């Protein structure tokens, strides 16, 4: 047990802090769910990449820093303390990037990873379908081999594809064996979104912005060079990088500690009004405690991983914990703001309200919390499948 950071870790923190201080935009960027805001966030990703900060845990040869997970936690702390912009291409960097590193050919890595790091390519996900949500193995979009054999023909529909409206590539699973069922016979493909036969239809989210989209495939041709791993092995390819790291990397603890800090400050500014509801102080305390707990649990796990421990289904507890915490913090802020809380353009309200709306999605995306509870019960506690 030793909580002292090493000299190297302190130097890493100092370097990140100095770089962020020099580069983080002075004024917040417009929402990345608008075209204008998206372009500004994309430009910020390019700035991060130029400084070598777009994904610190990637190997140096691919534009990262070869950082370990403790350094990643440090970077995230500095990033959120600096109120730097939201990351717009995390689906690529966190989901597709590690998959390419593990399963991609050298040509695929060289072709896609540097462009991903700079956000030259913006990646959308192609997992969910109208009839394959929590039950992802029910995917029915097809990718059948074309005559001649060097390409697939895609038909079907993906949905809930975050920022697909602004993306130029999509990664996802398609059924390549029409006789197959469930997680067999699926193939992992990378699809250029400007290919003929693709239609993208935006979906307005709760905040009125076109935050995600449906993607339709009508005889879309995709080269076999865009396949990751073997044909029919897509499920295993997708799941191999779905473990703990993905769960942690998706939402770093620093993000929630920053929100908890803002919540405590909001409560202090409006103490008299807030304390008329005796439940508010309790919710503020619980928010702080749980944000702290998530941080400590992350360090604990990352240090165990560094010593060679295996982390399994415990990762599912993360998703439940941070998504419920995010809801609690934003609900509490809305209650402190009281009647002003509905004024969408009030400068003190705006970010809380946007965050409150987004927090509603937390227990749903990236595997609903009900699915996470099933995983905990079956794989961590060993209870029988239903």
């Amino acid at each position, binding site marked *: 047990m030793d909580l002292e950071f090493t000299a190297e870790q302190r130097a890493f923190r100092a370097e990140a802090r100095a770089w962020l201080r020099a580069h983080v935009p002075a004024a917040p960027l417009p929402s990345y769910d608008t075209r204008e805001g998206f372009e500004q966030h994309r430009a910020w990703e390019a700035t991060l990449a130029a400084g070598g900060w777009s994904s610190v845990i990637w190997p140096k040869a691919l534009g990262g820093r070869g950082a370990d997970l403790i350094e990643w936690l440090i970077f995230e702390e500095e990033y959120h303390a600096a109120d730097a912009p939201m990351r717009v291409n995390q689906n690529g960097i966190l989901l597709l990037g590690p998959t390419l590193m593990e399963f991609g050919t050298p040509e695929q890595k060289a072709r896609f990873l540097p462009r991903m790091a700079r956000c030259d390519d913006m990646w959308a996900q192609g997992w969910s379908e109208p009839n394959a949500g929590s039950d992802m193995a029910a995917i029915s979009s097809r990718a059948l081999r074309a005559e001649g054999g060097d390409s697939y023909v895609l038909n079907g529909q993906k949905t809930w594809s975050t920022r697909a409206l602004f993306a130029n590539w999509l990664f996802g699973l398609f059924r390549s064996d029409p006789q197959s069922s469930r997680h067999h016979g699926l193939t992992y493909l990378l699809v250029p979104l400007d290919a003929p036969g693709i239609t993208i239809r935006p979906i307005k989210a709760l905040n009125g912005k076109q935050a995600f989209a449906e993607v339709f495939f009508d005889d879309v041709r995709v080269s076999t060079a865009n396949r990751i791993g073997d044909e029919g092995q897509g499920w295993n390819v997708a799941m191999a990088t779905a473990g703990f790291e993905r769960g942690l990397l998706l939402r770093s603890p*620093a993000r929630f500690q920053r929100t908890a800090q803002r919540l405590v400050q909001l409560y202090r500014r409006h103490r008299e009004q807030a304390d008329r509801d005796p439940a508010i102080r309790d919710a503020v305390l619980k928010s702080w405690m749980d944000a*702290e707990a998530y941080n400590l649990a992350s360090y604990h796990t990352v240090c165990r991983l560094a010593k060679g421990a295996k982390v399994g289904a415990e990762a599912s507890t993360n998703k439940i914990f941070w998504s419920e915490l995010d809801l609690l913090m934003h609900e509490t802020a809305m209650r402190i703001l009281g009647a002003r809380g509905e004024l969408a353009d009030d400068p003190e309200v705006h970010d809380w309200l946007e965050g409150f709306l987004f927090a509603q999605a937390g227990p749903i995306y990236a595997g609903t919390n009900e699915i996470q509870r099933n995983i*905990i019960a079956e794989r961590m506690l060993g209870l029988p499948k239903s």
Partner: protein
Amino acid sequence: MDFTFDEDQTALRDSVSRFLMTEATPELLREIADSGDAGWRRLRSKMAEQGLSTMSVPEAYGGLGLGDIDWAPMTQELGYYAIPDALADTAYLAAAMLSRLDAAHALAARWLPRIAAGSASIALAHPVNPWVADARAADLVLWAQPAAGGLELHAIEPGALQVSALRSIDASRQLAGVSATTGAATRVLDGAQAQPLWDETLDRAAVSAAGQLVGLAQRMLDLSVDYVAQRKQFGKPIGSFQAVKHHLADVATRIEFARPVLYRAALALARGDANRAALASHAKLAAADAAWIAARKGIQVHGAMGYTWEVDLQLFMKRAWALDAAWGDRGFHKSRLAAALAGDDALLGPAATLASG
């Protein structure tokens, strides 16, 4: 940066766990609850043979000289097996307190070797607790006496102590209302000297209770998992139903996020961090929450059996309910935490509590 336990600490925990699994059975807990001292004395002497009572005693007095970090896994084991208060109170809290005295102090020289030998039971009387656990069988009570200069430390031996037994819902807790005749003869330290020691002891006691509550939560979860895996309804184990699974997944999640908080608080004690009190309160609250939910969900998934005297779950539920308010109830710890958060920005923001040493 290594926020994990080393091999020695893990090995010690494993050996204590194996020992308690064999010796501290629910049958023995029931015997202690029914007939009091005999069963407890037998278990205590076995625990002393295992070296549990020597942990916090300095090496100069024949102990292992271990500290708060070593105790964080150990208090969880004590909770998991519902070991009565006297063990942690004597071997951890009292030993740590006596070790803080001047090495040559007569009180330390007299009692630390006896703690190490497992032949002394020491209770602590602090104003945060309206009564004292295991006072009747105590050979010594470390007594906090309010005075103008702060809480004084007095050493009260059985002859100077009046005890009246109180019945706890947790039958393993031998509670008593106590009064003592204090004076110059019993005073060990005056208020100015003793107050910081009592402050530290209070935080340590809260963390000790937190560790036991985390262990109790884990035990109640394990008992519940075992029960729902074998109990069948509608032709299947009830543990295959989502409503039941989700109850227990919630318990597992609360435990998963209470444990690191406990470890951070233990580190704060070991390092003497400036924010020690707030971190200790956080640990107590997080652990109490995990144990409370484990009890509530545990009885629910046990169905009517959970409401019986017969099923072992009750032993651990009652201890968890009792410890919830021991060494500071929720109001006490929330008030301390609220004061810390209102005070300054030291506890706020990314990495704040990790950094402060």
